Every structure is written in structure tokens, then in C-alpha cells.
């Protein structure tokens, strides 16, 4: 899932400082699961922001809140559309994709981000999320026994470990597991150590972000006659 965490209330207050009617919009998908922007967090931010504004002498500013199922899909934004005209700004607690989806849908309403989108990751333990994938567009996990060196090795080495691996820890921080130690240990357990003998060529980064925003098109799923630009 996409993992995000909250922004300081002061930062959000500063972003909306020129607005009088603000709608906080939560998202019921990834950011609900990572406890950053679901219904409860929107409620918390709503309370906090209203209090902050009152304490700053801006009692007249209206802050309302609503949470929709998913912000990164236009069909779900329909549920929100009838209300948007009542507000002069939106603060979205979805990931950056959700924020931009609202901005595209509502060209006349300023949209501000209410969380900091962090990474694609997993729930490591209750309350702890860790990064696992950098969305390189050309997944190599098959060559690394299911452990991503792009994301989890500080140097993104395809032929590790580097000389800084110590007792299973990365030289960058004793808090970090050395990804290459993890790869080695798992390959050994799977009896696949010989596969690590091969020198892995560099990743073809043409699938990465450097060429601008990427697009996935499924012609067979596009609406007939309208194609990918529907």
C-alpha cells in the first residue's frame, strides 16, 4: 500500500490561511489502513484545525470534513462533487495521487495536501510501516530472492554487499538491516546461493520516473472507441 504520515497542524493552517470555507477530504483506502488520512484522522485534523483557527482569532473560518472511499478514482469523487461548490478550498488527506485527482476534477478550487506521502510499503508490526518498493517499473525481485535491493539497500547495489556490511547491519545506519545480508541468508535457506554468482547488469531505468510520468494502458479494458484518452 501507499504509506503516508501526518503534517503538522501549523503547516496546514498556514496553507489555508487565505480561505474561509475549507473541506477536509479523507480517503478510505491506503491512508486509512496506514492511519494517516482515513475517517478518524480527518476527524482529528478537523478538531485540531478548528481549534487552531479559533485560537488565532479566525473563528469565522468553516472547516468541515468528509471521507470518500477512494480519491484516486474519478468515479468515487462523484460522491464529493455536489458539496465542493460550498467551499473555497480543499485539503486532501489522501496520498499525492488523490490530491492531484481532486485538483484535476475541481479546476476552480485550490487543493492542498494534508499528509506527507512517504512510500510503497507494508505494515511491519502494529503501528510500524516500512518501505519495500520504489516502483522502478521493471521488477527484478526474481533475481534477488524476493528482496528488493533498489529499495532496501542504501546504495541500491545489484551486486552486493558492499564493504560496509557489518553483522547484518548496513553501514549507513545501525538501525538498518543490510539488504544484501538478507538476500544472502534467504538464498542460502532456499538453496539458491549459486544464483547469486552471476553478475547482474544494471537496471534498465527507461521504465523509471526519469522519462516523466508513466502510464499503464490496457487496451482491452478501455471504453470502445474512446481508447486510452477516454
Amino acid at each position: 500500500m501507499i504509506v503516508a504520515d501526518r503534517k503538522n497542524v501549523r503547516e496546514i493552517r498556514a496553507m489555508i490561511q487565505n480561505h474561509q470555507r475549507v473541506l477536509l477530504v479523507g480517503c478510505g483506502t491506503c491512508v486509512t489502513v496506514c492511519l494517516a488520512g482515513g475517517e478518524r484522522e480527518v476527524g482529528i485534523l478537523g478538531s485540531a484545525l478548528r481549534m487552531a483557527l479559533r485560537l488565532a482569532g479566525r473563528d469565522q473560518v468553516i472547516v468541515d470534513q468528509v471521507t470518500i472511499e477512494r480519491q484516486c478514482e474519478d468515479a468515487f469523487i462523484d460522491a464529493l462533487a455536489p458539496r465542493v461548490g460550498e467551499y473555497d478550498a480543499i485539503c486532501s488527506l489522501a496520498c499525492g495521487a488523490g490530491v492531484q485527482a481532486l485538483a484535476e476534477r475541481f479546476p476552480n478550487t485550490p487543493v492542498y495536501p494534508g499528509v506527507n506521502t512517504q512510500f510503497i510499503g507494508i505494515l511491519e508490526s502494529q503501528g510500524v510501516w516500512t518501505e519495500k518498493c520504489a516502483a522502478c517499473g521493471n521488477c527484478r525481485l526474481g533475481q534477488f530472492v524476493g528482496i528488493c535491493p533498489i529499495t532496501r539497500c542504501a546504495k541500491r547495489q545489484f551486486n552486493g554487499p558492499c564493504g560496509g556490511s557489518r553483522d547484518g547491519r548496513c553501514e549507513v545506519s545501525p538501525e538498518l538491516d543490510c539488504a544484501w545480508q538478507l538476500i544472502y541468508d534467504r538464498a542460502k535457506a532456499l538453496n539458491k546461493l549459486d544464483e547469486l554468482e552471476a553478475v547482474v547488469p544494471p537496471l534498465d531505468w527507461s521504465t523509471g520516473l526519469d522519462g516523466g510520468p508513466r502510464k499503464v494502458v490496457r487496451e482491452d479494458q478501455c471504453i470502445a472507441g474512446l481508447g486510452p484518452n477516454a
Partner: protein
Amino acid sequence: MEDEPLILAFCCHYCAYAAADLAGSMRLQYPSNVRVLRLPCTGKLEVNYLLTAFEHGIDGVLVAGCLEGGCHFLEGNLRARKRVERAKVFLEEIGLEPERLEMFNLSSAEGPRFAKIVGIMSQRLAKLGKSPLRPDCQTVHQNIQAMTDQADAALAGAKHDCCRS
């Protein structure tokens, strides 16, 4: 009464609520400006409960759970303490004194300690003064009553909506 700071006490059913009862049975004197709101466990507490209370104009909030290690649900009181700490961060960010919120631990047998805790918070709030978010006193009382009714309804198994906008 009008000028006294109002304290909302989120009390665990298994300890602080019983201790408050005991303090009453023992005829102990403690400040009358506290309103007790019973929770099945302080682990039920979420940051939004605490912020909603302050938004309604309550001057101070105390959370009273079982002694550490003594929670009926093992670690509800430890979670509550973390949530109280997180709510304090929010209070600091919005510009309200975090000291208006505090977590205490006690057992059901400690009626006198309940009275003492209320005294500590009451004194602290007397120094801090009324919340700058406070509407008129009657409205605060009505808000507390509404929150208490909703909490009771929730405890009785009904669906509650006290934390929704």
C-alpha cells in the same frame, strides 16, 4: 461554579470509575468541577475523543486507567498513555497548553487517590485559567452531558456517533 474550570475525567470501568464511586462512599471531599465519563477500558480512548472534548470547550481532561500491569485487557492503559501523549502534541501545535491533559493510573481500591488526582488537576487548571476555546458555561455543561450520554449509549451496546462531525 460558573468560574471554575471544568474537568472531564475519562475513567476506566474497572479502576478509576470504581475508585470514584468509592471516594463517594467514603464521603471524601474533592472538587465538584469534574465530570466522570466511563469507558470500558482506557484502551477505548482515541485521540479524537480527547480533541473533541477540548473543541467542546472543556478546560481540562484527565484520563484515569488501571495501574500499569493491572489492565483488565492487559495493555489498554499503556495504549491510552501513548494516545494521551499524541494528543498533547496536537494541543501544542494548535497553541493550547498540553498540561490541560494528563493521564493517571490507580486501582479500584484507591478512592482517596481519585480525590487527590482531581485535586491536582483542579489546582493546575486554576493556574492555567479557563480554556480560551470555552463557550459559555451552560453550553459546556450541555456538551459534557451529550458526550456522557453518548458514551453511556455506547457502553450499553448502542452505536454511537460522538466523534463524527
